[in-house]
Each structure stands twice: as C-alpha cells, then as structure tokens.
C-alpha cells in the first residue's frame, strides 16, 4: 500500500475546533496529525464574521451578565432541545476561551471609555463607558441574548481567531497534511482506528492509523447546493463517514439553521452583527416589519424566529421583486460610513465587491439562507461517539449538543474553542487508559474497499452527470426542507431523494484523468451528501411538531409531551435508508417554557422534571452513549439560573 502513517490522534479538519483540539493533545505530549481539505487558514471558520459569545460583562449594556445568563439564553435559544449540561459546560468555559484567544494574539475590539454612540431598537443612544472598563474586551449585541455578549474583531472575528489558533499549531509543530481528505473510517465495529485518506495533490489513497480519531469537518450546508452561506468545502464528509460505519448515529439532522441575512442571490453571509449594531430589516414598502411582530427584541430575536417572519413577509407579497426571486432589504445606511468601514469592515467589502453597493448609501438585498447544521455526529459530553469508542467529534460536525433546535449567533465560534479544549483534554486522558492497536488486515480491507469504490466510478458506462444530481438535491432541500415544512412536501422530498440515490448509481464521470481528479472526488462526496440529505428529510418528516428551526406548518405547536427528545439516525450497512430512534435531550434544569420571543403554541409536558430526568441516563446508554469521564449531571448547577433570570430581565 502506498501511504500508511501511524499516530496517536488523527484530527480530520483544520478549522477552529479541530486545531484547538489538536493543540490540547499536542500539549499533553501526544503525537497528532491534522488532515485538511485546504490549507488550515482557509477552513470555513475564517468566514465567521460578527462575534463570539462569552459572558465577560465588560460594557454598560453587558452589566449583570454571567455564565448563568448565557446558559439561560442558550437553552431558550435551543427551544429546549439542547443538552443543558453541555450548555452549562459551554457557558462556564466561553470566557476562558475568549481570553485565551487574546493571549494567543486576537486583536479583540476593546472598550473605549467615555461617550459611545450606539443604535438600539431604532434609536441612537449615547452611553458613557466607565474608565475602569477601558481596554477590556468589548461586546456587541446579537440575537436572542439578554445582554451584549458577542466579543468581536471588526467583522473578521473568525479570521482573527483562526489565524491565532493556527499560529499556535505551527508553534507546537503539529503536522498538518493539507489537501488530503478522509473518505472512510477504519473500525472493527466497536472501536475506530483511523481513516482511509485520499490525497488531493496526487489522487492516491492511503491510511492513517490512530488510537483516537476526531471528526472536525464542520457543517454540511452544501447539501443545500448554492442555497447556503457555507463554503464549497462544507460537504459534511465527517458526518457521512461516521454514518457509513452503520454504528454511529447522527443527532437532530432535521435541525437546520437559516441565517436571516444571506446576500441575495449569491448566498454570501452578512453578519448578525449588522443588526446587533442597529441595522434594520425592511419589506418592499420600506417598513420595519419586525417592530410590530417582535416588540421585545425587534430585529434581534433568534435566527429561526427572524427567518420565519421574513419568509412570511415574502409569502404575503411584501418581498422585493428581482429577476432571481423576491428578497427583503437590510438597511445599514444610518450606521454611517465610519462605522461600516471599521467595525463592520468585512460587510462593507462584501457589499462593494459582490453588489457594487456602498451600504451607507444603499440598501442590501437579503433573504434567509441555509447557514448552520445543529445536527451532526452524536457524542457524549466528552465528545466521544455513541456506539463507537476512539471516535470523537467537535464543533459544527458534532451534535454535542448545546444548540438543540436553534443555535444563537456567536455561540458556534465559542463552541469550537470550548469543545476543542474540553474534548482534546478528554482524549489525552483516554490515551493514558487505552493501549490498542489495529489489526493490519483491517486497514488493508478498508483501503481495498475504497479502492473498489473509486474504481467502480471510473469503470461505469456512460450515464448522468453528478452535478445535475447535486442541483436536483439542492432544489429539493431548499424548497421542501427550508424555513417552513409540511408533511406532503416532506413525503415527496423523501421519495425524490431516494430516486436521486438511484440516479447516482447510474451516473458516471466525464473524465478519468489521473491525479487529483476533482470530478471523482466530488462524486464520492455526493454519495455522502445524499445520505445526509435523506437523513435530514426522514427526521423532519417524522418530527410532527415545530421546535426552533424545524417549523412544520401542519404541526405548529412545540410538543413537549411527545417531542422533548433528540432524533438519532443510524444507517445500517447495506440498508437503503436510515433508521430513526429517539433519546431524552438530557437532564432538565431549566424547565421547558416560553422563549420570550417568537411566541408560539406549546403542548406542555405532563411528566414531572424529576420523572423525565430519572430515565435520561438509562435511555441514552441504550442508544449507545459511552461512559464519560464525569457522571451525567456532574457539571449541572441545579437552579443556578433562578438568580440569573431576574438579572437577565433587567
């Protein structure tokens, strides 16, 4: 075999989560190899714009903030779909993660003492930032939060964070094999031993054997084709190869976030920080429709809620017509040139480069666009997979699960670093306890299987185009698994995606050039993407309620009696579709209730919290959850939110 490498820990993906995890492993003295489709600094973390949530409470509008309030916001944002213990671990560690980034060199925007002018709910307000806070990390407002909490570096927060973290990876001398993809996991049914790789410089297959393997491949927005803010590399390869084991479930794949302000029609992201800093959303009549619909939060309700209101405006004929279909306007004119070219600089550059628009003079066309995958490889609180030891996931690729059915803006960037730190340390600890090595026959078998798979593509008689199948998948996903869903459309989506899987079996390549042939690379990734698309559609069809970003017109109520649970989808080897199971979301500390925005009908849970919590551990273990370093519930501070709730309403 051409290329076999052994290491302690293999990290697949060199974005923020993967690199931060690798740093922790390397710091413990273990060898670590990172794979990346692209040079690490080109990972999609670099495109995160507006901020990273951490309750430092440094500016006046952040006074009274604490991890407790952050926890409350996160659970409410998730529409109670989150694992509250994970939300707690996250909120407690986010301030450390942000300060650590400052230590690594991120040039966070800082508090300027004296009179500062902000736009808040349509009014310009002068606020005196006190001298004693001068020079601390500044916050901006984001959706669904009680306090200003998002720490930021202009509108290039992800870029600055990724460059700082990758600098540390270089300092630590960690090997990054860029232009290399993982196309299958090597496992024995119980334990993961690494991955089969394909080099994107030469096209050659190889294998990396590892005692622990980490999926850090980010989201899978590209199952929505061009209707996503995601980079072209966000094809969900990590989730797909985990699913292909037949053992590991994906969690809540039907929970798909649509960002209110994707640029129309290119889908390029413009940050929530635009609205956080005072930007408005306007309909075709030039009205701020959210003022009446969400009196409390206006433009800054959670993303699922704002996206629904926007799509309703469009459906009721108040969208702005364009040759590419109707859109709404983002109005940033009142923020002024000085603000837009500094604190929102990347937004100004995008408007200039892709629309030819100066946002202080003109309106920006936007429309809800697929943005984030709350679902992903289901893991326990140590980040270890359900159903397979030695396999971990961090960041967007994981369903850890602090986001439930809706992620708050700025929480994902913070999650990457918190999860990377926590899971990396757990892996380092686990390596102390395990001494495993893979049977070399297992490796040969895995590589031979993938060689056959690639050859079968090259040997096919003339058939349809893989790109046509991708486009058909994208139309199904956007039109029937979008902001609003109905049973009829989901039935037809499932049927049509199954037909597409058949069509893919008859598709063929146009080129068989040797080397890193991009067409065959895409073909095998498309196989995985269609699997993820079908899992998403099946999960959405089965879930007969509306929760967070999963909004069923035929089941408009959130049903805590039947659906306060997490979908788990496994795909048994050689089966023609996924098998769905469910588990409790985790221990409940904050009881299910109103979110405080996006008012919707609810069916209350009849069971008591105590009864719900009593079955969590056994029910999750039955689904394959492995024991974590600390017992379930050990990180929960019961009732701590009670004191915070008063503060968060201030």
């Amino acid at each position, binding site marked *: 075999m051409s290329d076999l490498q052994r290491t302690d820990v293999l990290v697949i993906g060199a974005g923020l989560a993967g690199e931060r995890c690798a740093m922790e492993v390397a710091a413990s003295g273990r060898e670590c190899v990172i794979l990346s489709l692209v040079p690490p600094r080109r990972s999609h973390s670099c495109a995160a714009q507006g901020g990273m949530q951490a309750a430092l409470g440094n500016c006046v509008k952040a006074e009274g903030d604490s991890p407790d309030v952050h926890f409350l916001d996160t659970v409410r944002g998730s529409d109670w779909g989150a694992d509250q213990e994970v939300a707690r671990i996250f909120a407690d560690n986010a301030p450390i993660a942000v300060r650590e980034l400052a230590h690594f*060199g991120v040039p966070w925007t*800082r508090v300027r003492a004296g009179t500062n002018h902000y736009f808040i709910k349509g009014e310009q307000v002068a606020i005196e930032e006190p001298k004693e806070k001068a020079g601390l990390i500044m916050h901006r407002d984001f959706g669904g939060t009680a306090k200003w909490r998002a720490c930021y570096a202009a509108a290039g927060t992800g870029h600055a964070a990724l460059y700082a973290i990758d600098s540390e990876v270089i300092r630590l001398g960690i090997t990054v094999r860029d232009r290399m993809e993982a196309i299958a996991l090597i496992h024995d049914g119980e334990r993961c031993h690494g991955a089969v790789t394909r080099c994107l410089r030469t096209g050659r297959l190889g294998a990396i054997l590892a005692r622990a393997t980490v999926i850090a491949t980010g989201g899978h927005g590209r199952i929505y084709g061009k209707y996503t803010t995601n980079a072209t590399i966000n094809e969900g390869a990590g989730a797909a190869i985990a699913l292909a084991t037949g053992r590991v479930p994906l969690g809540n794949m039907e929970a798909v976030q649509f960002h209110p302000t994707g640029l129309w029609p*290119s889908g390029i*992201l413009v940050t929530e920080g635009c609205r956080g800093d005072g930007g408005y959303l306007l309909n075709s009549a030039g009205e701020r429709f959210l003022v009446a619909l969400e009196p409390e939060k206006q433009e800054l309700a959670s993303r699922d809620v704002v996206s629904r209101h926007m799509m309703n405006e469009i459906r009721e004929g108040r969208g702005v017509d364009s040759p590419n279909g109707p859109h709404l306007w983002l109005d940033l004119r009142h923020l002024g040139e000085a603000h837009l070219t500094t604190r929102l600089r990347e937004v100004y550059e995008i408007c200039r480069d892709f629309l030819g628009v100066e946002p202080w003079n003109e309106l920006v066309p936007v429309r809800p666009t697929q943005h984030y995958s709350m679902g992903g490889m289901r893991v326990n609180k140590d980040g270890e997979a359900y159903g397979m030891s030695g396999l971990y996931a961090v960041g967007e690729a994981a369903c850890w699960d602090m986001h439930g059915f809706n992620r708050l803006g700025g929480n994902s960037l913070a999650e990457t670093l918190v999860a990377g730190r926590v899971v990396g340390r757990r892996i380092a600890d686990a390596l102390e306890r395990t001494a495993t090595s893979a049977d070399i026959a297992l490796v040969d078998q895995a590589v031979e299987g993938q060689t056959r798979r690639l050859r079968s593509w090259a040997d096919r008689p003339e058939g349809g185009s893989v790109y046509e199948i991708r486009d058909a998948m994208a139309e199904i996903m956007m039109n029937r698994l979008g902001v609003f869903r109905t049973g009829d459309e989901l039935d037809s989506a499932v049927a049509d995606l199954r037909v597409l899987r058949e069509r893919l079996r008859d598709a063929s*390549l146009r080129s068989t050039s040797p080397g890193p042939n991009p067409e065959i690379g895409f073909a095998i990734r498309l196989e995985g993407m269609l699997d993820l698309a079908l899992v998403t559609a099946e999960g959405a069809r089965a879930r007969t309620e509306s929760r967070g970003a999963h909004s069923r017109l035929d089941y408009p109520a959130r049903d805590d009696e039947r659906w306060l649970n997490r979908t788990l989808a496994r795909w048994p080897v050689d089966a023609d579709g996924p098998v769905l199971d469910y588990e409790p979301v985790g221990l409940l500390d904050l009881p299910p209730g109103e979110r405080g925005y996006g008012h919707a009908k609810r069916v209350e849970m009849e069971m008591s919290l105590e009864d719900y919590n009593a079955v969590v551990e056994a029910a999750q273990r039955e689904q394959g959850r492995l024991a974590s370093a600390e017992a379930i519930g050990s990180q929960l501070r019961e009732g701590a939110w009670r004191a915070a709730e008063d503060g968060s309403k201030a």
Partner: protein
Amino acid sequence: MSETSAEQVASTEALVAERKPRRLKFRIFRYNPQDPNSEPRMQEYRLEETPFMTLFIALNRLREEQEADLQFDFACRSAVCGSCGMLVNGRPTLACKTLTSDLPRVIHLHPLPSFQLVGDLSVDTGSWFRGMSERVQAWVHERAPFDPEAQEERMDDELAQAIYESDRCIECGCCVAACGVAATNDEFVAPAGMNRIARFMMDPRDGRGRRDWFDVISSDEGVFGCIGLMACQDVCPKELPLLEVYAYLRRKALGGWFLGGK
C-alpha cells in the same frame, strides 16, 4: 490582438451588453503533473456571460459542462479565505470576486507564479505560508503562561485596530506572485511575510525585542531586500497598506541598529 484593442472591444460590447450577452473566450493554462501524457499548454473555452457572473461561477460552469478535470481552488467564494488567487489577464487577484463584466471578452487565466503548481490553476500556497510562518516565528512569543482565572490584559482600542489592520492578510499569495524579488530569491520573506513580522512587532503581547527581530528583518532576505516595485500593494485584494508596513519595518530596523534596542 493587443491588450488595448481587447479592451476597446470590451467597452464597445458593454454598450450592447443589455441586448446581447457576450460570448466569453477563456484561454486557460493547463498542466496535470500527475499525468505523464500532460504537457503545459493554453486551452480555449467559450462560455456565454450571465448577469453578475464571477470567475467562481464561470470556472465551475466550465468544469461542470465542458472540462471535468479542470483544477482550481475555491472555498468561501466571498473573498475571505484566500484560496482562489490566480493571474487574471496577467494580474494576480482573487477569482471569486472578479466579475467577468469588468474584463474584456478574452480572458487569460494562469496559476500564480512563485508557488509549486498542483495542477492547472491550482497552486500550493499552504506549504509556502506555513514555511514563512515557521521562519519568522509568526506567533505571539508569550511572556507568561495563560492564566484561565485572570481577567484579560487591557489594550487600547486604537492599538487593537492597528494590529487588526495587518492581521487582515488572508494569505492568498497575490503579493508574493506580484513581487519581483520573491520571483528570483526563494529566501526573501516577501510582502506577506514582512506584513506578518510587522503585525507581531507592534503587538505588546509578543515578548520579542528589537534584537530578536534584527536578524529576521535587517538583511536582503528581509526588508532591505525589497527594491520598491510596490506591485504588492497594487494587487493586494485586502488593500493592506504594505508601503506603510515597509516604512515601519525600516524605521524599526534602523532604530535597532543605532540604538541597540532592548
């Protein structure tokens, strides 16, 4: 056809663009080093222009409809990841934000020079930038270990903004490709490298003093290697003020020489 007449054709055609879409002619550098039968050549493709067509859209259409093994790199397609640097009619730039409507009808595409070719329009910028980062040790040389319990160190917002200004480099490699010195001297840290040095030099969190920097910058491989062609600043897609960066580094280097520094 000379470059000027191509532009004249373009402007004439722009007048009738609303009525009749242009039929673009792409001349693209092709070479697959993994294929023993492949030879470097220019290959021609035609494509009908659509409104707001970028080179991201055009190249993907060419690959999906005409030339399935065409190699190029895109990731974010929003000019923040730096993947898609290439020579567009001889000028290094990001393909994803280049509108075909800003180009003449005939579009020449070449890979960025000064980097190892992967194939066609794809080059290995990743290895170059990692090597540069290792050479100039482009990380914060900490003065004390991180204390997770402590409040963050304070920083003036003006300084944070100044650091952010040079931290905005996206490592696309356009400045390296445009640099006459980098083209002939592999040891030259090149504009992106000097910008990186300046970024850490102005950061008070970095514990390095003038003496630590002296060897890195005060040589022909450093700031005194630059012969002032300044193409780097002209082509930088992020409009980094590279001229100011060199002035800053020269001042620092001379200060280190005469004053001894810390």
